[in-house]
């Protein structure tokens, strides 16, 4: 029976240096749905993403993936998510094509790689080592993973940051057909999406319960 909600978060919270980072978060994400995380700079969006991908241990609250507690299904969870954060994760000594090859799953065919590179306009840079490319181009190599990844749950931490017009259109189209194929997305951004309607969630600072 296909589990309807892919991700359930219950009162997730994190304490750093005895300071609670944000008001505890709870939401349920079902298949084919996307969630737009909003919040001012420093409101804890990146910390929340780190909690979602299991890099940080939450101080309180629980995380369920397909109705299983995160601790019990760590392998299935981590093999089924795609996380693109602020850093591109591109090795400057390797060429663009090798980097994308390194970041894509096993069964991606070379044709898929070149298709993805063409979509981000990096096709003719395929064999050039990345230290010749700009940071924006590094970011586009990371975003090319949206085409080659077969993960069903996407976590995008401010994907639209410092991107030109076509970049934003490229990401929105990728997100749209990912949702149509039944995947789901949690992304944070300061700008609204033109084509897509996404459920919004406001991150608020922690109020001391007096």
């Amino acid at each position, binding site marked *: 029976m296909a589990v309807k909600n892919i991700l359930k978060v219950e*009162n997730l*919270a994190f*304490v*750093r*240096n*005895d300071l609670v980072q944000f008001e*505890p978060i709870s939401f349920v994400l079902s298949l084919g749905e996307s969630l737009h995380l909003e919040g001012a700079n420093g409101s804890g969006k990146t910390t929340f993403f780190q909690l979602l991908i299991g890099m940080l*241990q939450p*101080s*309180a*609250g629980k995380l369920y993936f397909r109705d299983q507690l995160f601790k019990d299904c760590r392998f299935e969870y981590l093999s089924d998510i795609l996380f693109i954060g602020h850093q591109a994760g591109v090795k400057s000594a390797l060429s663009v094509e090798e980097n994308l090859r390194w970041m894509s799953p096993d069964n991606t065919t070379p044709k898929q790689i070149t298709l993805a590179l063409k979509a981000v306009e990096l096709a003719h840079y395929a064999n050039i080592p990345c230290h010749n490319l700009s940071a924006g181009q590094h970011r586009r190599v990371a975003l090319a993973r949206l085409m080659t990844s077969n993960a069903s749950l996407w976590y995008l931490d401010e994907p639209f940051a410092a991107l030109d017009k076509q970049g934003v259109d490229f990401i929105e189209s990728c997100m749209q057909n990912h949702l149509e194929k039944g995947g789901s997305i949690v992304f944070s951004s300061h700008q609204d999406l033109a084509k897509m309607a996404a459920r919004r969630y406001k991150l608020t600072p922690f109020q001391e*319960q007096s």
Partner: protein
Amino acid sequence: MKLNVQWTWFHRLGSPRWFYQKTQRWLPWLSLVMLTLMVTGLVWGLAFAPPDAKQGNSFRIIYLHVPASIVALAGYYFMAIAGAIGLIWRIKLSYMLMRSAAPIGAALTFIALVTGAIWGKPTWGAYWVWDARITSMLILLFLYLGVMALRNTYSNNEVADKAAAILSLVGMVNVPIIYKSVDWWQTLHQSATIKLTGAPSMHPDMFMPLVVMILGFYSFYAVSLFLFTRAEILRRECRTSWVKQLVTHNLVEK
């Protein structure tokens, strides 16, 4: 809608407060015990015990050198175990105990090294002799300094504790290896040095004050650890309400 948030870390915050109150009562008695042990041990060892046949009176430094090195080594194991408990069960109090144990251990190792060096002058004619015991003590001092230095490189408290705990665990695995390999290295280059600490073969009159001194140093370690940990609790919990009450109550009372 009242957020009945089950804060797993709330009840754990309670244990430092329990520790603070418990030590408030124990400290006076424990320091009394420590003082009597130390004074009797020192007076007995320095004034009443017979001197060693070969080394004469300089032998009396054993009553400081041996207890300091024993407690310093035991202190390292205590620090590593406190770190391990912190890592496994994420208990803040054990991290604080670990953090306080490091400076005490380093100071005791320093005492052991200095007294060992001073003792070497009359016995071998040189302040520094690469005797197995003293070399292992030197390496132990570097291990302690490593843990303390690592502890201060991280700004975030939780991460600093975990990193220091990992390093002290790695160190704990290595300490016996280091001691054994230094001993083996000593036999390889066996120069005619008498064994510095022939404890069991000593005359009972010499041995008894040593036992008293060792107990004295252990109780000293406990007292100093409690004091350091209490200061650490105040530093970490200064925002909590019970500390504020404690401070206001304390000032009113004085």
